[in-house]
Structure formats: C-alpha cells, structure tokens
C-alpha cells in the first residue's frame, strides 16, 4: 500500500482596456489591450502584454449598396491580435525534491521532482483573419467566408530530452514558429418556408494547413528526429515500398539516402530513408445538414465528409504473420497475397524477416485513401396534437427517433477511416424516445 498527497496553487491576474467604436452602424473599430500575470511562470517572466485590433465595414449601409436589392447584408471584417497562453502545469520553474512513499535503510526518501526551468515565458499566438459575411434575399441565403492565419511562437511544450539528462522532458518554450492557416466557408439557406412545410440547409467547408515555419538550429535539438522545417508538425514519414525480393520473398524498401542500409531517420535530413508523404491533416472536410418539417413531422440529418489519406490497419500490427497474436485478417491476407506467386519459403534468420516486415508496415505500401462520407446524425420527430393532450395535462408529447453514424461510404481498409488503426470507431447508436412535457 502506498499513500501520497500533494497540493498546488495557481494565481492569475490581469488588467485590460477596451475601446469600441461604432459609427453610424457602418464602421466598427475595436481595440483591446491586456496585461496578464500567471503564477505558472518563473519570477522574472510572469507577465505578458497582449492585445488586438479589429475593424469591420458594413457596406450594405452605404448608399451605393442600396442599388443591389438582392443583397440584404454585407460586411467586410478583419482583425489582428496577439494572445497569450499559460496552459501548462504549476510549479514547472521550481527546483525541488518530492517525497516518495518508500524508505531506504530507515530514512524516507526525497527524489528530484523535475528539471526546473526558470526562463520559459508566455506562449504567443499572432492571429489574423479576414472575413466576408453576405446575406441575400432578406437573409434567406447567407454566406460567410473567412481566411485566417495564426502564427504561434514560444509554444509551451514538454520539451523532449534524451534520458541522459535525467528526465524525459522539461517545461520550455518551443523556439519555433508554427503556422496554421486556412479557409472556412459556411452557407445557410432557407429553401422553402410555407405554413405547412419548411426546409433549410446548412453547408460548411474547411481547408486547414499546418506548417513549421522556422526552427533555428533544429539540427542541434531533440526535435531533429521529430520535425522538419517547412513540413506540417504532424506528418507521415514512411519508407518507399519497392516490391518483394525474388530471392528471399521478403518485402523491400528503398534506401533513399543511399547509405547502404535502411534507417529509421528522415530522408529530408539525410539521416534515414523515411520520406515525407503528406501531412496527417485532412485535405478538406465539411458537413451538410438539412432540416425538413412537414406539419408535425421534423427530420434533421447531417452528412459529414472528409478527404484524407491514411494508413491501413496493418500499420499498427507489430507482429508478422506467424506470431501468436491476433491480427485483422484482410490486411494480413493482402500482405501475404501481395508476395510472389510462388512464394519462396523464408529461410532468413529471425532478424531479417522481422526487419523486412516492420519496414513494410512502416512503408507507403500501407497508404490508402481514408476519405469518407458519413451519415453522422439523423433525427426524426413527431409531435402529437389534439385535445386529448390537454385532457392528460400534457403540454407536449413527442415521439423521437435518433440515429448516429448510420452508414459510411469509404474505401478504407480497416475498422474505420475516422479513428483509423486499432482504435474504437465512432459507435452506431439508435435511440427511440418518447418525450412528455407537463
């Protein structure tokens, strides 16, 4: 049995000033300034100054816009700001020892808590966005388009350390700039609106991109094997599959850096043979939802779509065929059948066959289209009406049927293109409900 106890304190203080300016509902300007202090930083870096400025022009209020009667609303907006974050654990700057629940030779022990860092400071993100909001036909159709670009600097991270330093990581700022940018579109429409029948649709579409803009001297840091400047932070680095060796029957991959052996490092940095095969973020994604109401019946449904590449389930299977472990049959058979027609018996040592298989599972041979369209949500409801409701003192009596993840259209080989690998897929749930409101 062991017991442990702990305590922590966190204090945050801030002062801010705001100016809003609105001239004739046409020109809008707002300015914010704030100074924040957090006890999560070392004594000399507790405070940070942040602020933002935004401007909007509602041009449908201008005289010239009145000519376009179909245009009911139009707004052009832009903003720029710097925001700070202190989302880290408490006391990471504190050089301290902690008690352990064991004693050794009659003395209860103290062990170092962490590698303290006095110098990390506020994480800063510079946010910029430009947007256009439009309303047509008395706002029956509305459209908005936004372009954004955020650049994060000094990101607060658990900075990885080679264990020779004593700990696997410590709290620090990432001395790098990371860019997130993209487009977001939404379109809403009231297609039909009559006394008996209503139909409205919403459509949204997003394209996001992530990139490591700069990381000075990355080759001298523990991130050299993790990130490549100019690439997304989360990327697929894989071996290039070059078919099966006719002699041994084993899968082979390309020696991209030409050093005579297959190495795990990045081809980009010349330290290995894994090349950049795209980011792990989707190319684009979005959703289409519809609401239909006819008299007492209401139907909502939402389609979700994602365009992306992924790796099939074999990428998470560490044991080659023949080991006493469960594995998904289809990708394993695909691997076995992909071999030579007259599959030679593998007579190489444990070493070579195992390595070849593990290279194969880390190669682009497992790349597959993981795009999908999914009926994410369906909701059908019927509201009963009539005098009998009143007699039963009911305000409302509704019969409802809800379903999630009813079907998915995909070519992905594995459990599910969204969760991928050996992970629990989104569950299909169907719920029937009777709702009484008294």
């Amino acid at each position, binding site marked *: 049995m062991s017991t*442990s*106890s*702990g*305590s*922590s304190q*966190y*204090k945050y203080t801030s002062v801010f*000033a705001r100016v809003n300016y609105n001239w004739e509902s046409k020109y809008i300007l707002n300015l914010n*300034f704030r*100074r924040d*202090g*957090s*006890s999560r930083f070392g*004594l000399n870096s*507790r*405070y940070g100054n942040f602020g933002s400025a935004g401007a909007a022009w509602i041009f449908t209020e201008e005289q010239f816009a009145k000519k376009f009667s179909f245009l009911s609303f139009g707004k052009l907006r832009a903003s720029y700001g710097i925001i700070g974050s202190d989302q880290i654990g*408490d*006391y990471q700057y*504190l*050089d*301290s*020892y*902690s*008690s*352990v629940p*064991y*004693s*050794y*030779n*009659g*003395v*209860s*022990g*103290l*062990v*170092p808590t962490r*590698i303290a*860092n006095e110098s990390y400071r506020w994480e800063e993100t510079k946010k910029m966005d430009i947007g256009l909001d439009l309303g047509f036909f008395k706002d029956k159709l509305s459209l908005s388009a936004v372009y954004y670009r955020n650049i994060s600097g000094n990101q607060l991270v658990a900075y*990885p350390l*080679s*264990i*020779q*330093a*004593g700990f696997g990581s*410590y709290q620090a700022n990432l001395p790098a700039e990371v860019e997130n940018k993209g487009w977001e579109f939404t379109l809403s429409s009231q297609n039909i609106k009559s006394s008996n029948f209503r139909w409205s649709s919403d459509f949204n579409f997003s394209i996001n991109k992530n990139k490591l803009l700069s990381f000075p001297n990355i*080759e*001298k*840091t*523990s991130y*050299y*094997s*993790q990130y490549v400047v100019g690439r997304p932070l989360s990327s697929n680095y894989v071996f290039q599959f070059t078919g099966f060796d006719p002699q041994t029957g084993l899968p082979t991959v390309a020696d991209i850096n030409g050093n005579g*052996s*297959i190495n*795990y490092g990045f081809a980009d940095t010349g330290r290995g043979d894994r090349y950049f095969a795209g980011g792990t973020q989707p190319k684009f994604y979005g959703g289409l939802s519809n609401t239909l109401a006819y008299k007492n019946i209401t139907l909502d449904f939402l389609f979700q779509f994602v365009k992306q590449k992924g790796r099939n389930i074999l990428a998470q299977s560490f044991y080659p065929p023949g*080991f*006493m472990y469960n594995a998904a049959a289809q990708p394993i058979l695909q691997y076995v059948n992909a071999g030579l027609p007259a599959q030679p018996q593998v007579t190489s*040592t*444990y*070493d070579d066959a195992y390595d070849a298989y593990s290279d194969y599972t880390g190669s682009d041979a497992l790349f597959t289209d993981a795009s999908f369209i999914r009926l994410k949500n369906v909701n059908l409801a019927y509201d009963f009406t009539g005098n009998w409701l009143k007699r039963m003192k009911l305000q409302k009596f509704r019969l409802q049927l809800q379903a999630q993840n009813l079907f998915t259209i995909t070519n992905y080989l594995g459990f599910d293109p969204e969760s991928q690998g050996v992970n629990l897929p989104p569950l299909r749930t169907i719920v029937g409900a009777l709702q009484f409101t008294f």
Partner: protein
Amino acid sequence: MNNLYKLLRSVCLIVALFTVSGCKKLLDIDPPKNERPSAVVFGSAETAKAALSGAYSRLSQSQTYSVNLTLANALAADELRALSGTARYAALQNNTYEPLTSSFTSDIWTDSYTSIYQFNSIIIGLTDNTAVNAAVSKQIVAEAKAMRAYCYLQLVSLFGDVPLVLTTNVDQTALSPRIAASAVYTQIIQDLTEAKAGLGEDYVSNADISNRMQANKSTAAALLARVYLTTGNAQEAITNASEVIGKTGLYELLPGSELNDVFLANSREAILQFGSALNATAGYTNEGQAFVSNPFSFSLPFTLSNSLLAAFEPNDLRRSAWVRQVTLNGVTAAEPYKYKNYDIESATASQRSELPTVIRLAEIYLIRAEAYAALGNRASALADLKIIRDRAGLADLPANVNINDAVLQERRVELFCERGDRWLSLKRTGRVDAVLATAKPATWQSFAQLFPIPQTARDTNPNLTQNQGYR
C-alpha cells in the same frame, strides 16, 4: 469630452502603476506541500540524507537494478534460457536485440541515467555547502560518487562509449555525445578513489538494524578491484581486492554447509546489498520472484543452460544449494535458486529474509585470482581459487591446469546469474566470440557484445551515434 479625458488619464495611470510595480505579490504562491525546494533539501543534514535515501531507493527498485541486469545479461551470455516464447527474451538469448524494440537494453540505459541524475544532484547540492555538517556531507558525497561509479560501470560495460554526464544542468547534459569508454573508466576510477577516501569503514545504519545497504569503504575498494581488472591494471586490482579480503572483522566466506545463507540479509559475505523489493523487511527479491517457480505457477519461466549445468564438477555443493530441479506439466527446468523466496508469504514462511546482493566476497577472491594469473603469479592465483573450491567441496586443481581457463570456469559456477558476471567476464577476457559462436551458432554476431544505444535516446539527442552493426 472633458470626462472622457479624465477617464483615459486614470486608465493610463492604473495601467502604468500595474506595469511598473508588476504587482509581484499578487502572484506569490507557496510551494506544493509534498515538494521542498532543493535549497531547503541541501540546507540540513537530515534532508540531505533523505535525498541520498531517495537515490538508493529508486536505483534499487528500478526494474534494471532489481532484476533485469541479471536476467538480460544471463540470457545474452550462455547461462540462462527462457522457456516461454516471449519475443523480448528470444531477442536477448539470440542476441538479436534492436535499438527500437529492445525494452530490456533501453531500460538499462534509462534507469542508469535516471539514477545518475540523482547522484549528480546530491554531489552538486553538497559541494561548497556549509549548511550541512562537514562529516555528514563528506560521507553522503562519497556514497553518491561510489554509486554513480557503479551505474557508469554498468553502462560502459554493456554499451561501450557512453555520454559522461556529471552535472544536472540541462544545457550541458541533454546533447552531450558519447565519449570513449576509456575516459568513462577514468572517471569511474576517480569517483571510486574519492569515494574510498571519504567513506567510513563501517556501514551506515539508520534503523538500529545492522545492514549492508549503503556503500562503505570496502564497497568502493571492491568496485575499484573490479574496474582495475577490467581496465587491465592487475596490480591495483590485487591491492584493492586484498584490502577487502583483509577486513576479516567484516567479511568472511560462509562455510560450504551454509551456502543457503549467502544471500540472506546482512550476510557476512555481502559487501553491498540493496534494500528489498518493497521495503527492508519484505524479505524477498525481484530475482527470486523472476526465477523461482511457486505452487501457483502455470509454467516454468527459465532454466539454466545445459552448458552451465555441465560446467559443475561432480559433488559441487553449489550445484545442490543454488540450483533447483523442477518439473511442471512435463517441462523440466533447472532454476537459479540462490534467492529462494518469491514473495512476502514465502519469505515469512521461511523466516529467512533475503536481500539483493550487489557485490560479495567470493567475487573479490576471483578478481584477485584473475589478476594474479594476469601477472603470471600462478601460485597465488591457485591459492585464491583453492579458497573458493574448498568452500564448494571440490578437490584441488592439478598443478599444470590452464590458470586462465580455471579462473573463468570457477567464476562461471560461483557467480552465475549474479548481475551479468558471466557476460562481462566473457567480454573482459576476449572469449565472447569463441564461446558464444559455439553456444549459439545460428544467431551469434560479434557486434552484439555491445548492446544497441536505445533509439529513443538517439531520437532526442542528434549527437548520439549507434554502436556498429545496428541499424
């Protein structure tokens, strides 16, 4: 307008005040109740002792130092075979361990450097520190240096060139490269020499129970003998070994009739023992738990290799005391049986408390024998071997025996499954290729005598090179 101006002025004033003063007090917080700032820890003898105790306890409870050193090295050499088909055991006994997947070898690296950080932190915390009583401080620093040297000795013997980290400053430690094994040995010798000068003759005992759980002068001398033997300085090995052997008030070889008591807590043969798996009174060791089958075992985990069993001469008392023949479900195993308790219940039932033994006197005789042989002093080497063989109930060796073979053979049967002695002896004597190519003809490759540098360590330090032969 006038009002707006006044408002703006007061806002500016408040912001300016806030900016200038920084309102430091607003953010003052107390340290967590379970943490003490390092300055406080090294501000009194009592807490400094607690830091040392914490370092011993983490080291001795780590997977590596409580069982895996013995297990991994015995499998990598020709002592032990796994009876289960577990892949990580197979990789060790076939010597096909790899940088990315071998958890045993990477744990040795991780556990060693984690403990080295603690010993470094103690040594630095007490350097130029007047707050702690000078005698206490000297003792703690000497112990920390002895144990830091012990950790580096494992690293350099198993991985070859390794980073030499002697500080806690992350800017200096995180990216330091591997340095030549010879320089690491130089540091080990320096640490042990300083430790030997600073340590007392007797063991530190805090709980009024006499024990051998913290390094004393003889611990440093014994480790020095081991290091000097490895680095080829036979004369110094003999000097240090003799120093330990001469401490007859502290140490003696238990008689052959008491071989079962050699690994008990506070055994008179022990030069250093670790605290037990859970606490000093648990009475069993992780090695016992790993090797000894119990009434609830479904299968037998390990067996000593046939070649090791064949190496015992007839009527060797060690064969009957330290090896146990078991059969379960038609499988027969010869279990290492130096430690006999496998859990708290078995320790309570046997009323015999065992502790992991790090170094013991028999090894010191064998170190001295090997060093005498290296200097061509056959008579003295044979005399030391005779002491070990007499205790095991064996006859004297013939006068014309190959003395080097005889020392290696005696080490093999005396020190089997003790923290990798066989594996290190084969490497030290340059026989590892010849012996293991015979023992494992299908899988032995010479480069495997050095373990791979863990991939995770290399991923986070671009300056770490890999040992030759690994990908």
